[in-house]
């Protein structure tokens, strides 16, 4: 187990380096000098040169990359061009809301998709509902879903806040109340995609002899489903959670924007719009690292949930 963790970690590091190099070089190489980006196309060449010298963009790319990584490792991601704020200061307070949204979204998606697909009592009624919800989750774009949910629950029914973010200091109830719609919006798609994977695996597991054996013991259908089919069908979902958390690492962009949540996603959008190179580079790198870490975690969780691998 320990050697497995070490092995996966060692594999993760070159991965991170490779992707970060790729990111750095495509942004700088393809988009051209950040100075041009910042000053706009009609800037004078002298002004651009001056700015390039000032920020060190005139150095070779690999030097800039090493310089950036070295500073980043020391916690210095530079300063925002737009606000001159330190990138770290701009970024740090935005991490918690994004992480919270992503985690809650995942938890809601996993539990609802797995539980609703495993219920045996009243399956004939539950299944069609699950199917319709899945269809909505997969086909309806996130922004539309977010807006529709807001319309229904906030505008028409008036039971939930339209948007915005209540910090923990505003009280846990207030805090969670503001999270309901964003979390549902994030969870919808994953609810559908986890459900698909889970139900396919569930069907395959149902045909196994040990499930027949569980029935022959005299267990009820729902005990068979939750105690035996579920644990044997959950592994592919865990893998999916890993890669999905990676996707969400940059913040659930759309949900954050629709509900104006002060997360990493909204910062990323504004950084892109204002061509705030150090900010989106920092977010990009953090995303890469968390994707790798999340996948690693998913791998480990997978191993922990599977005795056959765990013990060999």
């Amino acid at each position, binding site marked *: 187990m320990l050697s497995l963790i070490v092995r996966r970690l060692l594999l993760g590091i070159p991965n991170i380096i490779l992707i970060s190099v790729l990111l750095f070089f495509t942004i700088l190489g393809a988009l051209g000098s950040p100075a041009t980006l910042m000053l706009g196309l009609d800037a004078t060449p002298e002004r651009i040169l001056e700015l390039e010298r000032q920020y060190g963009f005139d150095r070779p790319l690999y030097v800039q990359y090493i310089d950036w990584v070295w500073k980043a490792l020391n916690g210095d991601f530079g300063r925002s061009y737009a606000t001159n704020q330190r990138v770290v200061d701009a970024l740090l307070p935005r991490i918690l809301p994004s992480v919270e949204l992503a985690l809650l979204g995942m938890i809601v998606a996993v539990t609802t998709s797995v539980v609703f697909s495993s219920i045996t009592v009243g399956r004939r009624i539950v299944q069609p509902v699950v199917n319709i919800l899945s269809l909505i989750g997969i086909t309806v774009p996130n922004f539309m879903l977010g807006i529709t949910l807001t319309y229904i629950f906030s505008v028409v029914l008036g039971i939930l806040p339209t948007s915005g973010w209540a910090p923990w200091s505003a009280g846990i109830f207030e805090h969670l109340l503001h999270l309901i719609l964003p979390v549902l919006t994030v969870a919808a798609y994953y609810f559908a995609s986890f459900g698909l994977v889970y139900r396919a695996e569930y069907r395959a597991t149902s045909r196994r*002899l040990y499930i*027949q*054996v569980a029935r*022959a*013991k*005299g*267990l*009820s259908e729902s005990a068979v489903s939750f105690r035996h089919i579920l644990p044997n069908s959950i592994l592919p979902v865990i893998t999916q959670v890993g890669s999905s958390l990676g996707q969400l690492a940059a913040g659930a962009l759309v949900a954050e924007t629709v509900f104006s949540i002060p997360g990493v996603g909204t910062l990323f959008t504004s950084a892109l719009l204002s061509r705030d190179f150090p900010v989106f580079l920092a977010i990009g790198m953090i995303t890469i690292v968390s994707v790798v870490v999340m996948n690693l975690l998913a791998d480990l969780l997978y191993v922990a949930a599977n005795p056959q691998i765990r013990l060999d």
Partner: protein
Amino acid sequence: MARNSLLEVENVSVSFKSAQGPIRAVRDVSFRINPGEIVALVGESGSGKSTTGLATMQLIPSATVSGRICLTRKDGTKADLVSLSESDIRRVRGNEVAMIFQEPMSSLDPVFTIGTQMCEAARVHQRLSYRQAYAASIKALEAVGMPDPEKCMETYQHKLSGGMRQRVMIAMALSSKPSLLIADEPTTALDVTIQAQIVEYLKRIQKQTGMAILFITHNLGLVAEIADRAIVMYAGEIVESGSVSELFTRPRMPYTSGLLKSLPRLGRKKTLGTPIEPIPGSLPSPLALPSGCKFHPRCGHFVAGVCDTAVPELESSDQAHQVRCARWRDIARTAQ
């Protein structure tokens, strides 16, 4: 005798739905099992043995079962398993009738320890604390000759050999002291020495507990070793039944004789070099059953107009010996 039989299967038919029409896998099967009796259900692959066993447990939701399967319960009352509600049949499964299966390699849940699964089985029908269930499981594992029961409780199934897994299955099946054990080819997937051990343990446990066993097999050699009585099935029907000694010495139905002849030298250890005569042809498809006697396309005694017209009745050739063959009297006469 009829009053105290444990299981009475009466006119049971099982059919599966399929795109080509209903598959009538088991047709009009009737037999009974007395308390403490070991009855073998014999036949080639596909003859409907497992289906009969599973129907008794009501474990084939995809099939339609008709007829009556009457069980004398532990409290002395009788219940028709076919018409029992889902929650009532659950109190029978594992509790009064237990079942073990052909593939021990896939009979155990891979994500739980043997101990978890055994305790689960012990606690389904009995009010036991986890401690008591654990102790009972250890005892049950000892009874089936598990070398190190404590260690076995902690392991996962993939660490155990096929023989060990089947022992666990037997121990688990016995945890609620069922009055009937349906053993569906419990040794087929195991190698010969292990087979013999498992059969030994089954016999020993049967003696100790006095439960009845329906032993499903296609191996007549095993039938001779374990069973008191045997029921021979062909293409979903019972074609012959009687005491094992009677069937082995005086088989009346040509199919049973064929099975006996295809047996590699009964009762002798060295089987190498002995001529065996397999029955020519193969089991008909359940979707295209022959007319009359279902065995007639493969039968050496076939007479056109006699065998392929009406389905022969199952008749008593002797006390407690039944045969389904239009010509059994002629055949018996010429054999003498």
